[in-house]
């Protein structure tokens, strides 16, 4: 067993001397606060109240019976690992999204929330 110790050590040394790893994080940030949704009441709150609480939407979509205000931000995390002749890359992107549905009179009818950006993780591709 001892005779393999030195070769194994050398092999590991070569392996790690020529290896490197990297991490990256990207935020597409919009400072809306989802806790402000508690102040909004479907059937009563207006588009003006929505923008006062959540700010300007990232996107506005025209619907059959009004509009939808979409608030979106993302968090992505990337991991790279290079080991001599093998390289691994992993990229994970998740979103925080709020969609506000407004009728033709600009009254909020529905809303939906998904706060998922914090689930973006570093890791390997398996």
């Amino acid at each position, binding site marked *: 067993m001892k005779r393999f110790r*030195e*070769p194994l050590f*050398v*092999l590991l040394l*070569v*392996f790690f*001397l*020529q290896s490197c790893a990297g991490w990256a994080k990207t935020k597409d940030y919009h400072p809306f606060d989802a806790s402000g949704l508690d102040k909004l009441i479907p059937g009563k709150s207006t588009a003006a109240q929505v923008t006062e609480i959540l700010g300007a939407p990232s996107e506005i*979509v*025209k*619907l*059959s*019976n009004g509009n*939808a205000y*979409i608030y979106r931000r993302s968090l992505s995390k990337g991991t790279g690992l290079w080991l*001599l*002749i*093998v*390289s*691994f*890359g*992993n*990229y*994970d*992107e*998740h*979103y925080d*999204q*709020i*969609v506000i*549905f407004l009728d033709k009179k600009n009254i909020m*009818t*529905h*809303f*939906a*929330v*998904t706060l*998922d950006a914090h*689930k973006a993780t570093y890791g390997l*591709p*398996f």
Partner: protein
Amino acid sequence: MVSPFKVFPFLIYSFLVGSLITGCVSYRVIKAVEGRSVPDIFEEFRVGTTTLQEALEALGAPDQVAELEGKDVLIYRRSLLANSGISFGIPLTDIWGSSFDFSAYGELVRYDLVLLSFTPDGILSDIASEKGSRYPYLKTLLSDKKGN
């Protein structure tokens, strides 16, 4: 002076071989995931009875909203990109004039999609879904079937 090749032969040769094969042989695996997985609860939705409110409560905010022929469409989507490649080459251009090189790469993007269509009154009128992630990477990539 004693040659280092005699004192640490394995160390020196290993280092040389390790240094030389770098760049000649390489294998890479890349994975990229965008978005969250869509809960299977949408399978319990019923056309004509499920409301927009119920769908939003069950699935959360959609990734895309659009109007299509007088109906409101909600789209939930997750994409999975898988990329792998292997490359083998002997760079002899400087001493021989030509070199040997072999490489193979593959990339596959699969989508998990749920599309819900609602009437202006907020009643579900259509459901469409696709679970691309159930298709295995290599088998799908190498398949010759049209559309696959």
